[in-house]
């Protein structure tokens, strides 16, 4: 592997300090990259430029020493975006990757080209920066042409130098433009380097943040401190909708220097000592009203199915009349699949530091969208956006929208009240109990096959929460009685509800539900894990019904060579034997072994992924052991194969966890699965070897790969369980108790 550029994780802070910018507090000067400050006072029109996403200078700063800094609103949440974006930029600019540094998610420094989500970091974020770099490349060649007195088309840019292609004296990028602005609009048509000439993109370069993370030197938001800072904790009610009646401050009299902050039903404590704040939050006696507005999680599937529908929408259709085709089909299948409510369950509870002053505020956050968080905080707390600076710092993996925005609001409110900087980190029960959740999903599928097993009718009905425009409400604002939007959203949860195979008379209808029991948000690969679980489980049911091998059945319905490729690779790697499922069950107990397969194309438009796995099930207990997983993955152009593998392996392990263990439990009042004992996740003893085959398509655009590999995992696992046992599990999690029950009946 190539050598890493080390310790970049903390470089932004170093940069801010060395750049003379003000870290704490807000000033217009701090919005300027270092090289601009070095030029003396900029004109007013310059002030706006560095943040305008149409300008090259907003994304890239060239230093006199030849180094380049990237400015981006896309953030690396442990996904390897930093190195990938640096590679793409270095490649286009003909410079070494270790002369690139990166500033992420600081609203005073970076242009807003979107938050991080939906695997957009590479295909949109890094591609934006690459286009800026390509534009800069042309400009640099032009400047070189003037200096070297040669036509630009006789020059090359490589090794940080512009030189005549035929050889001869060159001039460095640093000399040409270092410390100066290009004052150029990003040219969407600026030619990109020919992938055949890539020397940096495609290399498994090491991530710059890992050495710091392995030595305790990475500054996470959880580690950030500012002078005069207080530690805060928020006391959430024992029932979600309960109101605060009274508190008894004498209950915390023995704890030093604690202040209680109460705004209507928002109840917090702050103290200079974090442990004092923790103890006070735990011990403060408070009386709350009763509230029982939840349905309870015991019969959630039924509840979802009966919930009030906002509207119906046909989200996919291949024409025809599924109903008529179904009733005249040779074989008719019907099944209901369900997915429970799940938590992001970040390993480190959400944390933020806020410093709210009369004339502005600074918030440090690990949110995947600094600009989004800024807009929401500004609106809710009545502060002009430009007076609020939101700065991203590394955090515990968030996998979408965990508690990061809520904890920022907690810290903001406490800081505003105390007129001092306040750090709030949620406790474990806050994160499990109050992070917005991946919503429950129910799918009913009807499928008709002709005598040859071709799909002649397909009808998916899905029950999922409707998107309501506006921000997700912040817990702190609701509790404090501050008016705010009550939007609802959980990402593009209706995708991948149709089969990716040849099929006639296909229709997917979403019954958009007005509400869902717990506040929803995006959870990695929103909706698609459940939808593929249903679709690929159902396709497996069809194969079994026809007595056809599961892989063969899938290949019959495919003509796209990229799809066929991933299926063949995943099957080969696991040593797939062609035969129908299930395995005949052995006459006597013991261990049942089986294999399962699933394929999908992410959002029906992006990555191609196939997974195969082998499982062993204890007949006595119903315990599932995953023995091996293979995965073939095609995301177009590969930027960094090792970073990509890391994401795929993580996607698979995390989704095994979600499929085997995870279900948010709640009673009529509150979430009751509030720690790792009541909401268990995958442990080391359960992790199988994961083999990944990457298929590179250097001439095709890159898709994001932070979540696609999650989507077929639950389906291939359920299909393997079916193969081993003959039992079809159509709801998650596949706990031992659930499988044992199913095996008995």
């Amino acid at each position, binding site marked *: 592997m190539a050598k890493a550029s080390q310790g970049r994780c903390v470089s932004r802070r170093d940069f801010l300090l060395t750049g003379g910018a003000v870290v704490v507090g807000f000033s217009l000067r701090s919005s300027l990259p270092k090289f601009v400050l070095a030029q003396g006072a900029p004109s007013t029109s310059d002030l706006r430029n560095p943040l305008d996403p149409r300008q090259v200078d907003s994304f890239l700063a060239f230093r006199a020493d030849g180094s380049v800094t990237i400015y981006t609103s896309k953030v690396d949440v442990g996904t390897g975006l930093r190195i990938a974006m640096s590679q793409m930029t270095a490649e286009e600019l003909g410079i070494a990757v270790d002369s690139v540094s990166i500033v992420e998610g600081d609203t005073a420094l970076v242009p807003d080209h979107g938050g991080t989500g939906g695997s957009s970091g590479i295909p949109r974020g890094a591609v934006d920066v690459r286009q800026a770099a390509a534009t800069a490349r042309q400009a640099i060649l032009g400047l070189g042409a003037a200096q070297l007195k040669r036509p630009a088309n006789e020059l090359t840019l490589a090794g940080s130098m512009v030189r005549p292609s035929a050889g001869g004296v060159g001039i460095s990028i640093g000399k040409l433009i270092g410390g100066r602005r290009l004052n150029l609009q990003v040219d969407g048509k600026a030619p990109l380097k020919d992938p055949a000439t890539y020397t940096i993109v495609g290399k498994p370069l090491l991530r710059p943040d890992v050495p710091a*993370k*392995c030595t305790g030197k990475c500054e996470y938001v959880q580690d950030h401190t500012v002078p005069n800072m207080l530690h805060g904790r928020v006391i959430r009610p024992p029932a979600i909708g309960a109101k605060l009646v009274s508190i008894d401050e004498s209950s915390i009299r023995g704890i030093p220097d604690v202040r209680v902050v109460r705004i209507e039903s928002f109840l917090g404590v702050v103290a200079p000592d974090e442990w004092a704040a923790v103890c006070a939050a735990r011990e403060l006696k408070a009386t709350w009203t009763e509230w029982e507005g939840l349905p309870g999680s015991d019969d959630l599937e039924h509840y979802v199915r009966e919930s009030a529908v906002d509207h119906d929408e046909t989200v996919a259709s291949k024409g025809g009349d599924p109903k008529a085709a179904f009733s005249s089909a040779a074989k008719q299948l019907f099944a209901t699949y369900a997915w429970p409510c799940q938590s992001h369950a970040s390993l480190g509870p959400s944390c933020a530091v806020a410093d709210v002053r009369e004339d502005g505020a600074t918030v440090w956050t690990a949110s995947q969208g600094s600009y989004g968080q800024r807009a929401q905080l500004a609106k809710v707390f009545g502060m002009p956006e430009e007076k609020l600076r939101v700065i991203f710092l590394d955090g515990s993996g968030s996998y979408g929208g965990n508690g990061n925005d809520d904890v920022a609001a907690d810290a903001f409110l406490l800081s505003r009240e105390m007129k001092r900087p306040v750090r709030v980190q949620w406790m474990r029960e806050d994160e499990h109990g109050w992070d917005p959740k991946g919503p429950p999903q129910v799918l009913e599928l009807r499928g008709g096959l002709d005598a040859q097993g071709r799909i002649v009718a397909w009808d998916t009905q899905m029950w999922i929460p409707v998107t309501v425009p506006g921000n997700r409400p912040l817990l702190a604002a609701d509790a404090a009685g501050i008016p705010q939007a009550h939007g609802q959203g959980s990402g593009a949860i209706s995708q991948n509800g149709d089969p990716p195979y040849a099929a006639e008379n296909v229709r997917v209808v979403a019954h958009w539900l007005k509400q869902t029991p717990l506040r929803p948000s995006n959870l990695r690969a929103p909706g698609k894990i459940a939808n593929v679980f249903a679709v690929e489980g159902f396709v497996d049911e069809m194969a079994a019904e026809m007595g056809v091998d599961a892989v063969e059945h899938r290949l019959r319905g495919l003509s796209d060579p990229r799809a066929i490729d991933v299926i063949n690779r995943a099957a080969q790697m696991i040593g797939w034997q062609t035969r129908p499922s299930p395995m005949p069950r052995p006459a006597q107990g013991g261990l049942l072994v089986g294999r399962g397969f699933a394929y999908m194309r992410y959002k029906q438009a992006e990555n191609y992924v196939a997974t195969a796995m082998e499982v062993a099930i204890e007949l006595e207990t119903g315990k599932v052991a995953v023995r091996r997983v293979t995965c073939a993955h095609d995301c177009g152009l590969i930027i960094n194969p090792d970073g990509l593998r890391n994401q795929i392996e993580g996607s698979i392990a995390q989704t095994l966890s979600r499929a085997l263990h995870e279900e948010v439990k709640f009673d009529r009042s509150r979430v009751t699965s509030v720690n790792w004992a009541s909401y268990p996740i995958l442990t080391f003893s359960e992790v199988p070897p994961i083999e990944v085959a990457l298929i590179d398509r250097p001439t095709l655009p890159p898709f994001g790969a932070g979540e696609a590999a999650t989507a077929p995992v639950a389906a291939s696992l359920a299909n393997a369980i079916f193969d081993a046992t003959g039992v079809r599990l159509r709801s998650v999690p596949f706990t031992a108790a659930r499988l044992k029950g199913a095996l008995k009946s």
Partner: protein
Amino acid sequence: MPKYEFRVNGRAVSVNSWDPGQPLLYILRNTLGLHAAKFGCGLGQCGACTVLLEGKPVRSCVTPVQQVTGHAVTTLEGLGTPEKPDRVQAAFIAEQAAQCGYCTNGMIMATTALLHQTPHPTPGEAKHALSGNLCRCGTHTRILAAVIRAAKA
């Protein structure tokens, strides 16, 4: 305020705490400015806060400062630096055995303790030693590879 004296990464420290039950984790992070150990659960369930006490892995989130008096504590900072990582850290870096890295402190400290006891663990022994450490990002296979790599180093 009562005073507690112990050693951290070879250095004698003396800290004050209003509560003898204050977990070591808060002392390390807030009083001593050592941020490697992380708060994950405060319940002894996840391992993010793991440090070594006399070479043995402990959950600093449930270890009262009082209990540490007179003992030697090692934190991740005490093993090596980005420029000069020790062999376990170097193995984690070489395997890129982190995503968000929030669990990494606990993984490296648990591995360090394991390799003291069992210099050449089998994959099964490695899994067992890390069974109390959770990783939400799903970095498990790389972490196991790093343990084996460190043992060979």
